[in-house]
């Protein structure tokens, strides 16, 4: 695939990647790496913030504080 013009915006890059992926499924390998690495990072971050001991209590208190859970 040849580019018609130089990509400038985020959406241009989204479009290029979608076109490449449509033509060739091998690009899914990179996507898998990205998704799994992000999952690992957010899981580790949450574990640091809410340790295993009293996990639910600490987390629910936090969620109440930020208004996600009803008091």
């Amino acid at each position, binding site marked *: 695939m040849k580019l018609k013009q130089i990509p400038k915006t985020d959406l241009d890059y989204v479009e290029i*990647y979608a076109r490449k992926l449509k033509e060739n*499924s091998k690009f899914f390998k990179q996507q898998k790496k990205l998704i*799994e690495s992000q999952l690992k990072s957010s*899981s580790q971050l*949450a574990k640091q913030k809410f340790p*295993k001991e009293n996990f639910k209590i600490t987390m629910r208190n936090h*969620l109440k504080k930020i208004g996600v859970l009803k008091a």
Partner: protein
Amino acid sequence: MEQKEGYFVENNTIVINRELTELDLFVRDFLDILKKHSDYLVVSGFVSISTGRARGTEDIDVLVQKLDKEKFNELFKDILKNNWWCYQGDTLEEVWRYIEKGESVRFAKQEEMFPNIEFITVDKTKPAKYFELTHPQKIRVKDFEFKIPPLEFEILYKEIILAGKKDLADARHLRIFFLDILKEERFKEYKLIIIKEKER
């Protein structure tokens, strides 16, 4: 090595040519429980991500046909029995006060916060969501088959209702990736429903 396209369509099911990710396995675990109790639809970010959008997510939005208290209790017990927990509470009474008002609740694997499932109940009082729930599109990755909204509906919902930067990028991805199978007449039909939703 033979080059394969990103997807193909087989018996009205979209088949994505890729390996399963850990996120797929997470969603599949939850749907395996949910499907025994209720109809469902996976919407929003996971639709784009499962079809190739290169971005992460921490929550998976799942629409669920509204259940009465007794049926929800059966589902809730089954979810907890399978090592999930609910942000909103450990008992039916705690969680039901959200469900009965049509508010969403979240489930994650025990001792995990992310990723999580946003469990959104739907009935006819939410017409756009009810429409997509009752007009599903099947999609498959390897042996994992699940239901998503019609692609044209999902695109318009992201462009018109959600309309954030991330949503517009998701919509652009879907428009390009599925260019060959999107139908203009469906866009016209669904746009009417979505505009109505926006005006509510």
